[in-house]
């Protein structure tokens, strides 16, 4: 008998169909990955097993866990099941823990709520599982609060809570999506270890095929609430049947062809830039300490060149980006665009500012929802001395919308009428409209689904051809940087530790940190590429 058997599970929330006859099975000690893009219903499948669905949900079909029909259990019985027979790990470790309770308290709660053992033993068990997940109590006492831990450490606490009662089934919903690649590799190792050690079944929800390929025994591919293809990992990857699977696979490792770069002529020169942040005083009259976010960074970006900047969170990428944009002044060093300084006398230089634009990560938060698209994308016009008006303005808007693959008619719409990918196109149109000499892409494709990401990357390649773009592409995603840039900088703890031609840096990294990054990044096996 299988550990978990989902058979013809259908789910509707109010009147919207979310899942259609989903079936899958998990055996003890097996890792089954459910993958697909946003809206495919993969998270809802997981929540259905936990019966933690949003209000208005109606289910039909069957979910049997260890011989028990989950859909027929009453809420108190479900409470007894959750945490004891099934543990769950979520995507956002930063917010998954209660900020006002200690980690020991929260791990022990899983045990105590099920009255599995008395308090003293529960505390002992909490120490034991925290040690197992890599947080030994001598370095991470039970009295620590979540805010004293990093994202990766918090995710370990969440895992410790989920496995404290040795459940038979562990559900992990995008457990590493919010983490850096090296942390991701550690957490994946930990999950894999738990599966072999305790013989639990693992239901892993992820959008990242590369993570799946390394880890799972079986893969279930979902789209629009339906299972489109399923099979053992190796077989599925070598012999994809469904066009959607093929498309996903291709899009995950999407390659674009960039036009050749012109002869090197410096556009942006960053010279020994230092940016410190003041820390809080440790004592009332103590001198405040400083944290160096950017430490003597120097590089040159040539006109027509596409430069990548990679590194993990906290390495100083964003601080450097803000310094280049002139949003914050560097304490020392110089940033020149086309020979002119970004800051003149502690003020941002408007002549430089109008030559730069930026595209941010979040396609949902970076637009004013009450403005129409034409107003949104003409915002950079205020940087110009004589902004275009009337028919000229309309023509520019139409041209830009067409250039990013939208229609000129979209100009009078509001932003909520667009999908995430379309919004990112609008963001690019906004950046391009004043024909800046330099565009900064700050994690600009990180929030997008793989198929949408592939389209945006294609769009960038087209725009490079049409508008001779020069850009700095900041990302933690190595596979994207690899295809969309000519040269790459690797940043660690505020310093550039390695730089060079993208292909060379990735194929033969010189610095130990670059090597670690590239080893940690999950890679898709080559075997499927011929098929796609």
């Amino acid at each position, binding site marked *: 008998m299988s550990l978990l058997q989902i058979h013809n599970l259908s789910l509707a929330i109010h009147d919207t169909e979310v899942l259609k006859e989903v079936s899958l099975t998990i055996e003890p000690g097996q890792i089954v990955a459910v993958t697909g893009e946003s809206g495919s219903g993969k998270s809802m499948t997981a929540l259905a097993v936990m019966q933690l669905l949003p209000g208005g949900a109606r289910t039909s079909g069957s979910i049997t866990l260890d011989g028990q029909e989950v859909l027929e259990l009453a809420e*108190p019985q479900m409470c007894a099941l*959750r945490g004891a027979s099934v543990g*769950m790990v979520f995507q*956002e470790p930063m917010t998954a*823990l209660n*900020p006002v309770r200690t980690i020991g308290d929260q791990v022990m709660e899983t045990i105590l*709520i099920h009255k599995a053992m008395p308090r003293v033993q529960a505390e002992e068990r909490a120490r034991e599982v925290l040690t197992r997940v890599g947080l030994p109590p001598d370095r991470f006492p039970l009295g620590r*609060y979540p805010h004293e831990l990093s994202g990766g450490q918090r995710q370990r606490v*969440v895992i410790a809570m989920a496995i404290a009662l040795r459940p038979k089934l562990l559900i992990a919903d995008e457990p590493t999506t919010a983490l850096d690649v090296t942390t991701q590799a550690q957490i994946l190792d930990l999950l894999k270890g738990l599966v072999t050690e305790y013989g639990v079944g693992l239901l892993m929800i992820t959008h990242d095929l590369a993570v799946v390929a390394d880890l799972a025994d079986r893969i279930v591919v979902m789209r629009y609430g339906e299972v489109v293809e399923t099979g053992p990992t190796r077989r599925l990857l070598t012999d994809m049947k469904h066009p959607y699977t093929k498309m996903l696979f291709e899009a995950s490792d999407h390659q674009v062809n960039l036009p050749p770069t012109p002869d090197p002529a410096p556009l942006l020169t960053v010279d020994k830039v230092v940016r410190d942040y003041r820390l809080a005083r440790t004592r009332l009259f103590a001198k405040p300490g400083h944290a160096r976010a950017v430490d003597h960074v120097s590089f040159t970006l040539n006109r027509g060149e596409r430069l990548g900047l990679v590194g993990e969170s906290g390495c100083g990428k964003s601080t450097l980006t803000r310094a280049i944009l002139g949003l914050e002044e560097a304490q020392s060093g110089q940033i020149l665009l086309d020979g002119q300084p970004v800051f003149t006398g502690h003020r941002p230089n408007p002549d430089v500012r109008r030559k730069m634009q930026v595209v941010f990560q979040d396609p949902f938060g970076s637009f004013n929802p009450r403005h129409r698209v034409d107003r949104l994308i003409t915002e950079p016009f205020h940087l110009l001395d004589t902004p275009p008006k009337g028919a000229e303005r309309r023509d520019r808007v139409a041209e830009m919308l067409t250039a990013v693959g939208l229609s000129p008619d979209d100009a009078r719409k509001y932003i909520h009428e667009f999908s995430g990918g379309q919004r990112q196109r609008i963001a690019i149109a906004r950046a391009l409209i004043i024909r800046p000499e330099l565009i900064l892409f700050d994690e600009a494709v990180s929030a997008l689904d793989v198929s949408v990401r592939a389209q945006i990357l294609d769009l960038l390649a087209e725009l490079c051809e049409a508008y001779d773009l020069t850009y700095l592409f900041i990302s933690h995603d190595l596979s994207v940087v690899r295809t969309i840039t000519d040269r790459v900088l690797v940043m660690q703890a505020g310093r550039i530790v390695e730089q060079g031609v993208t292909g060379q840096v990735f194929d033969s990294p010189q610095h130990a940190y670059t090597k670690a990054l590239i080893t940690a990044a999950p890679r898709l096996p080559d075997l499927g590429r011929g098929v796609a």
Partner: protein
Amino acid sequence: MLRYALKRLLSLILSLAVASLVIFAVIEVAPGDPASFMLGVNAQPDTLAALRAELGLDVSKPQRYLAWVGGMLTGDFGTSYTYRTPVSDMIADRLWVSLPLSLYALTLSTAIAFPAGIYAAARRGKPGDVAVMGATQLGVAVPNFWFAMMLVLIFAINLRWFNAGGFAGWEGGLWTGLHSLTLPAIALALPQAAILARVMRSALLDILGEDFMRTARAKGLSRRQALWRHGVRNALIPVLTIIGLQFSFLLAGSIIIEQVFYLPGLGRLVFQAISSRDLIVVESVVMLLVFAVITVNFLVDLAYAAVDPRLRSRT
């Protein structure tokens, strides 16, 4: 935690110093000489001078400021211009009414608001929630003196459970004192409870949407257990802010209710002192209220830190 408390304490002392300067300056620029006011328009110049000397009005302003502050620090608030009695005695009498009344009202308002807010949040959108929200809407909208009059009509005039007004004093025991403060405390508490319940509900609803509440449910906590164990404490932070503001308001702002119930409270004292230009009383009471407000804020700051560990370690 200790460092945090010391830092807040330092800020409390600085705020008090600044407040005393501002109050002194404002009272000083107010037109009208208390001595000539007391003696009337026909006063002889030498009598006036003598009175000014007696009241300490003949020295320089900085000297008077220092004398005032120094006096307050030693418990000497000066002598009332009008009544010729020590201001400290007058304030103490009134404080014995106003402070218990505020605490009583605050206790009532919290005791009503917490269960109502939590109940409504736990039943969001259901009839129970709608009923509680409707009641609080009414509580916010209706002025407290109207409540006061209704209470008098029902409980004092018809049912004769309470007196319609006046304060029995504490000499007859705690019960007698509290009994005569009950109707005013309820009248003060109802609108405050309505506001607080709404704040509690919305704070809790925000928390219910947090990821860690889902984590708690995934651990096997029931909806109710998750609400109590993880929701309420996190929701306390905005609620504490409102409680602090409400206490300050109740202490100083109950003048209308004091009038309705003929209570000898601080509000009426200030009102009388202003009408008779008894500036020393005004100064002292205002300073006392400032002191109370700042102290309450200090206590609220400490309560924040007790609730939220992130505040403790940040400083």
